[in-house]
């Protein structure tokens, strides 16, 4: 709270504390950006997961500290958001000073409902300024608001603003600075008898009636609506978008566009980033002598940075579409259309786009869950989003389906078994996600049913500046928060995969490998087809490249990571895995897509590119020939391949996803929960798959 001098004016040097409050979807965050630019502080209020966003700016030499309160429809404390808003406005939030002034954001196209919140703020008695947003849209709709009359009736300034073009921002600031000294708010008067039970309605109903009656009185003669003579362009768009047939078709087309964009259109950009990072790595390699430092820079730091930047195209593209859909009011419409499908498992329609996006990558998907206002729904969506099979799992499925699932027709000639298994992997993720959501709503998130009461805004044109701001903010927050952690994880995993390192032990293991191959060759009858592969492997050990790859393989197997693989062998053996597969699963933790590359290294192929025909065939041949140590028993059978696929379909072996969960929930509890439950499910799923598959002798 500011100190007042004797004459009651503020000393100009004190920062003015201003709270920004408004209904959701009223352009509040756009107004925040227009006033304060980028937030100087984003965090959580103590003890609750409600976002605390604070900005600071100067207007006419007056420093203004702007507290962005969560978007709420009411101040009646029913949710954590509302409780925080009330506590801040009453000066009862620890660490937050009592605001000197409140800006209530009110949507000019929907003033009646928006004034409900304003009526509650006016009752608190703080100096209040009303910012009428979306005025351009109101003008288009022929809604004329007499702001002077409204200001007179409410006893507080009412300022028209068009935040994206900064129209009215200066006037708003002038009013805010003047408000604490000039406004002497007197509480508004509702109908006196609303507390008396004489109408048969409940007390809350009587209060709401009294407030709306008050609003109707304030607004009478203030708003004049002159609807356009003919149906406006917007109304025609609205009619098509909400049409049962056309609306559904347009919805499907829009969602396809969003999905294909992040799934395919982002790929060339991601490839460009990868090859750029590869080029940089080659450059560093040519500058530095081989050794630990070069390896740290290339395989730890650069690989980590590449692993972060590579997500940017998908994040930027998804937020580009989300911002456009949000800006034109279609995001709520999409939630409306899909709600029934998700309601059954305890989610809501708002979870649809985040979950759909997670089929491309869980990271933008989890970030898109920001559009879900309801905390419980948002958390639930974030927790099940990684179960959607992302594009990084696809190469694993493709390789194993192609190599180990018999290519036979199922029923009809065109339906092949590998394709069916591939589809089943996607289905498994969806079904398990539905079950998990259902179980979580019945247990951890048990509570009163969450209402789905959502405003459906009409069609409006999205603003380029707002879209850009959304894309920039999402990309930046990812780079800044998650990015640094992902690089750190990458460096740790590099260290674990590189040390301990002993030239002597590596040479010994390469020799042992050679002898093992010679031994195996002697065990096979001369006509056995596998002999060819073993002869090949022996021959490759005589080449420089083959020997180098074998040394790398040995180094990795002897590293902490390799030892961890051996250490967990008892745990993965029931899944039909040998320690090498366990090792690859652990090594894929920094990024799922490296699992095939890691298998390549483990099987002495060096860093193969599974996307390339040669790398993939070579790996398949190695996998097919792989045997349990000291025996002729094959490791990779159909049940084992299925068990690996199921494990990868359900596990959370993706450090970036877990880091983003931490970033988005502002807590390390939820990534730990996600990792634990998913690893447990993945293990159980893989166990059941392998045991059942083996029992049926597949």
């Amino acid at each position, binding site marked *: 709270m500011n100190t007042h001098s004797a004459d009651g004016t503020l000393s100009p040097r004190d920062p003015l504390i201003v709270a920004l409050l408004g209904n959701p979807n009223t352009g509040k965050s756009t107004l925040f950006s227009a006033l304060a630019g980028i937030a100087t502080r984003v965090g959580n209020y103590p003890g609750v997961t409600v976002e605390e966003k604070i900005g600071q700016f100067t207007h006419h030499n007056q420093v203004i500290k702007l507290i962005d309160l969560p978007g709420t429809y009411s101040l009646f404390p029913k949710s954590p958001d509302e409780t925080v808003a009330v506590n801040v406005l009453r000066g009862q939030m620890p660490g937050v000073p009592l605001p000197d002034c409140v800006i209530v954001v009110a949507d000019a196209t929907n003033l009646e409902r928006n004034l409900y919140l304003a009526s509650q703020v006016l009752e608190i008695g703080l100096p209040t300024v009303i910012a009428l947003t979306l005025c351009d849209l109101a003008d288009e709709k022929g809604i004329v608001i007499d702001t002077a009359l409204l200001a007179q009736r409410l006893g507080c300034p009412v300022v028209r603003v068009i935040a994206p073009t900064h129209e009215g921002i200066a006037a708003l600031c002038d009013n805010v600075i003047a408000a604490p000294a000039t406004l002497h708010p007197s509480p508004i008067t509702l109908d006196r008898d609303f507390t008396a039970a004489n109408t048969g309605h409940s007390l809350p*109903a009587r*209060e709401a009636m009294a407030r709306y009656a008050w609003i109707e009185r304030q607004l009478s003669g203030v708003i004049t609506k002159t609807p356009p003579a003919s149906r406006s362009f917007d109304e025609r768009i609205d009619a098509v978008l909400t049409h049962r047939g056309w609306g559904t078709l347009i919805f499907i087309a829009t969602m396809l566009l969003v999905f294909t964009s992040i799934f395919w259109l982002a790929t060339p950009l991601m490839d460009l980033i990868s090859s750029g990072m590869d080029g940089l790595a080659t450059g560093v390699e040519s500058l530095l002598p081989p050794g630990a430092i070069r390896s740290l820079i290339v395989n730890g730091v650069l690989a980590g940075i590449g692993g972060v930047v590579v997500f940017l195209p998908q994040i930027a593209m998804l937020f580009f579409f989300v911002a456009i859909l949000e800006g034109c009011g279609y995001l709520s419409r999409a939630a409306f259309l899909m709600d029934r499908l998700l309601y059954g498992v305890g989610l809501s329609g708002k979870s649809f786009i985040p979950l759909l996006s997670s089929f491309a990558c869980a990271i933008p998907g989890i970030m898109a869950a920001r559009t879900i206002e309801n905390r419980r729904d948002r958390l639930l969506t974030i927790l099940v989003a990684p179960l959607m099979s992302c594009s990084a799992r696809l190469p694993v499925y493709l390789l194993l389906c192609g190599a180990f699932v018999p290519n036979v027709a199922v029923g009809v000639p065109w339906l092949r078994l590998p394709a069916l298994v591939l589809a089943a992997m996607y289905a498994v993720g969806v079904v398990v996600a539905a079950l998990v959501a259902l179980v979580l709503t019945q247990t951890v998130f048990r509570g009163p049913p969450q*209402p789905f009461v959502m405003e459906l805004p009409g069609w409006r044109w999205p603003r380029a500046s707002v879209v850009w701001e959304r894309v920039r903010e999402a990309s930046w927050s990812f780079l800044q928060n998650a990015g640094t952690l992902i690089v750190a994880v990458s460096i740790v995993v590099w260290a674990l995969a590189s040390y301990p390192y002993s030239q002597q032990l590596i040479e010994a293991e390469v020799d042992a490998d050679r002898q093992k191959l010679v031994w195996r060759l002697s065990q096979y009858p001369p006509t056995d087809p596998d002999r060819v592969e073993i002869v090949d492997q022996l021959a490759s050990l005589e080449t420089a490249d083959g020997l180098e790859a074998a040394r790398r393989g040995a180094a990795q197997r002897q590293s902490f990571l390799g030892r961890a693989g051996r250490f967990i062998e008892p745990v993965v053996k029931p899944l039909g895995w040998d320690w090498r597969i366990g090792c690859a699963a652990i090594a894929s933790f920094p990024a799922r897509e490296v699992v095939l590359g890691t298998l390549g290294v483990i099987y002495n192929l060096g860093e193969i590119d599974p996307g390339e025909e040669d790398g993939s065939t070579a790996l398949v041949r190695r996998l097919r020939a792989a045997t349990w140590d000291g025996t002729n028993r094959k490791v990779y059978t159909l049940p084992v391949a299925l068990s690996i696929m199921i494990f990868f379909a359900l596990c959370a072996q993706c450090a970036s996803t877990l880091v983003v969960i931490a970033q988005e929930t502002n807590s390390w509890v939820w990534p730990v929960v996600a990792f634990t439950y998913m690893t447990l499910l993945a293990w159980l799923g893989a166990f059941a798959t392998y045991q059942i598959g083996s029992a049926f002798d597949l």
Partner: protein
Amino acid sequence: MLSLQEVAVGASARVRDVAGSDPTSLRLLEMGLTPGVKVRVVGTAPLGDPLELELRGYRLSIRRNEASRVAVTQ
């Protein structure tokens, strides 16, 4: 007694009362579904739920489950 979820698509009704005083009912009231207000059922989502309503000059979506708490007269 007629509830809002029984009102035909395209038809209008006047709210009589919102049952209960739990957070869901409070939210419905705050969103403007107060006794006496006129509501039009604009349509439903393709799968039949939720409903799209028009009241107080704006569009609101609520589930059938929630609409069943709202008693109306036509």
